[in-house]
């Protein structure tokens, strides 16, 4: 991918003038880094010694047998330090921040994963750190808040708007315009104004580069299809970049179907027909918005997919039909999660489980000499509150009630 600010009809940089200069600096620094082979070396060394890369590509023998079609491989981003692919982006930006000489980072977070990753990076690099998180998400992801605070970050619950991810992004921008000289905004996904979509995708491309080598080694040839869940699009862009150049590999992005695409309670921007082109949060893409251009509430069991916009690069790849988009409903997600835990001893994040759903639907259609790859963007054990809740687990409820009684005493 060459340096671009616009991808087909999408992307760009729709930012307040106060940020113009800082984006120029960021763009500059990013381009310098991209053209400096030492930078990638430093980045990949850091990811190797700190975050455990390369993450494995695991052959899911039992699931493969169960579905009786293509060989199912799982790319294990859950094994990254902090438990998700978010670490890749954040560590990369951390290195850039060091180069820019800034001392403070801010970030938005939905699921809490990106906030965790940013707080971790800030601790490691010695930056001050403020995390914006929608109040609704603070409530559903309290353990992550606890850890962020323990790592020295300040977590600010955002009480405006629908109090979820998009509102946290707006609030982070407000902080940024106020503290532009000292602060870098570590955007958490392949969205936002240029160069973020491309830059975040570049850092995440480490996933695809590894996977492309691993599948050849383990399976002998490229996969037939690659599945990734799509919130902002960073894990999808990450793994897809290993295969974009090979038109024989079908790329499938899976969005949050929520309560079903017809219910209106979902976050499908690129599949279904509820989204339309728009400009917000600094970039042009397909947004879930009304006819006046006001953003709609979205819904997903997975906080990290609960977002109105989507990477402009993916909007372009969707338009060009290079990536196919599908959706998975909340209840399909819980089923896929259950099956994966029982059959492989692996706990995908709720976000990642969306990709599993679609892969499970399609695996039986393919022959046994084909491979498919699912990007497991993160681990689900961080989601204990959501998952135990969604499974309506009675001993979990008893446990929580008992602790609360102790605390109330």
């Amino acid at each position, binding site marked *: 991918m060459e340096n671009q600010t616009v991808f087909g009809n999408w992307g760009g940089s729709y930012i*307040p*003038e106060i*940020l*113009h200069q800082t984006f120029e600096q960021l763009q500059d620094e990013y381009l310098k880094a991209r053209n400096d082979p030492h930078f990638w070396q430093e980045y990949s060394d850091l990811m190797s010694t700190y975050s455990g890369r390369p993450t494995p590509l695991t052959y899911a023998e039992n699931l493969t047998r169960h579905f009786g079609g293509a060989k199912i491989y799982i790319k294990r981003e859950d094994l990254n330090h902090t438990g998700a692919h978010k670490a890749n982006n954040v560590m990369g930006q951390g290195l850039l921040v060091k180069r820019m000489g800034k001392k403070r980072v801010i970030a938005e977070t939905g699921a809490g994963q990106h906030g965790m990753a940013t707080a971790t990076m800030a601790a490691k690099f010695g930056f001050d750190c403020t995390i914006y998180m929608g109040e609704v998400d603070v409530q559903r992801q309290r353990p992550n808040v606890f850890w962020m605070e323990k790592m020295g970050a300040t977590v600010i619950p955002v009480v405006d708007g629908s109090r979820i991810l998009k509102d946290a992004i*707006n609030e982070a921008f407000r902080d940024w315009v106020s503290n532009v000289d000292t602060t870098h905004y570590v955007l958490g996904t392949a969205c936002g104004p240029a160069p973020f979509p491309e830059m975040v995708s570049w850092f995440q491309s480490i996933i695809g580069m590894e996977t492309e080598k691993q599948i050849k080694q383990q399976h002998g040839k490229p996969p037939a299809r690659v599945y990734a869940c799509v919130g902002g699009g960073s894990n999808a862009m990450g793994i897809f970049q290993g295969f974009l150049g090979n038109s024989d590999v079908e790329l499938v992005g899976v969005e949050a179907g929520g309560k079903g695409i017809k219910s209106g309670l979902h976050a499908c921007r690129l599949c279904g027909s509820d989204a339309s082109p728009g400009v917000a949060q600094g970039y042009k893409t397909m947004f879930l918005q009304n006819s006046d251009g*006001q953003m709609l509430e979205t819904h997903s069991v997975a906080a990290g997919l609960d977002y109105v916009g989507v990477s402009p690069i993916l909007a372009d790849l969707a338009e060009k039909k290079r990536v196919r988009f599908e959706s998975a409903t909340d209840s399909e997600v819980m089923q896929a999660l259950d099956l994966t835990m029982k059959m492989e001893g692996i706990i995908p994040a709720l976000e990642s489980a969306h990709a599993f759903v679609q892969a499970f639907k399609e695996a039986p259609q393919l022959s046994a000499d084909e491979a498919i790859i699912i990007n497991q963007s993160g681990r689900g054990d961080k989601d204990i509150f959501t998952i135990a809740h969604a499974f309506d687990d009675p001993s979990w409820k008893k446990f929580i009630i008992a602790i609360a009684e102790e605390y109330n005493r």
Partner: protein
Amino acid sequence: MVKTMILEEKLRAQLQQKDILLMTHIVLGYPSFHVNRQVIAQMVGNGVDCIEMQIPFSEPMADGPVILKANQDSLAAGTTVKQCLEFGAEMTAAHDIPFLFMTYYNIIFKYGEEDFFMAAKAADIQGLIVPDLPPEMSPDFFRFAKTSGIAPILIFAPTSTNSRMDELNTSADGFIYCVARRGVTGAQSEFDGEFDSYLNRCRAATSLPLAVGFGIRDSEDVRAISGRADIAVIGSKTIQLVDTEGVEAVGPFISNLR
């Protein structure tokens, strides 16, 4: 009524008579169009020279807490773009000062840029402020601005370099909106030495009138920029005033500013 006079000329004419002009800000539909109507009447009656009417947007990223909340409440009450356009037309017909629309780019983009300019023109709007639209992002926008005679108001910021100001100036019309400081709308600004040199840089970059906004809250602030800038922009302050003291407080507040 000299409705065809272009915005800059209109402001220059006013500047013949006054040291500094006053521009005020309201959020359309907040707390209601009815109150907007009363507030505007008080503003015009007490000498405001120009009014920017914000069409609310769900993601007002450059606005601080007061205006942000006003945007959300207005939308929650059901405000539509169509209502805003109609209300704009009503105001321009009722009052003989220039009215501008301020909004975020998506409102215009979604409406259709050309259509939006036509609708704004029909409503006799004199200028458009779009804080998240750098000129390089939509040449069309500036083409439609020119053909419709509606001034695209551009923004200078303290972080803008001289060359960036020059570049912005080539697309700007009507006046330049100089953001007094880093940050969002609503917080206090300091009009100190650093501000002076910033304003000198602004003046050097453009021949358009200079409006100064962000954090102007009282007559002292207005006095502080008089002689240095051409227009003082009062934003969050009047919204807070209506919230806390009611519509009637607006007139006295405005007449005491200058």
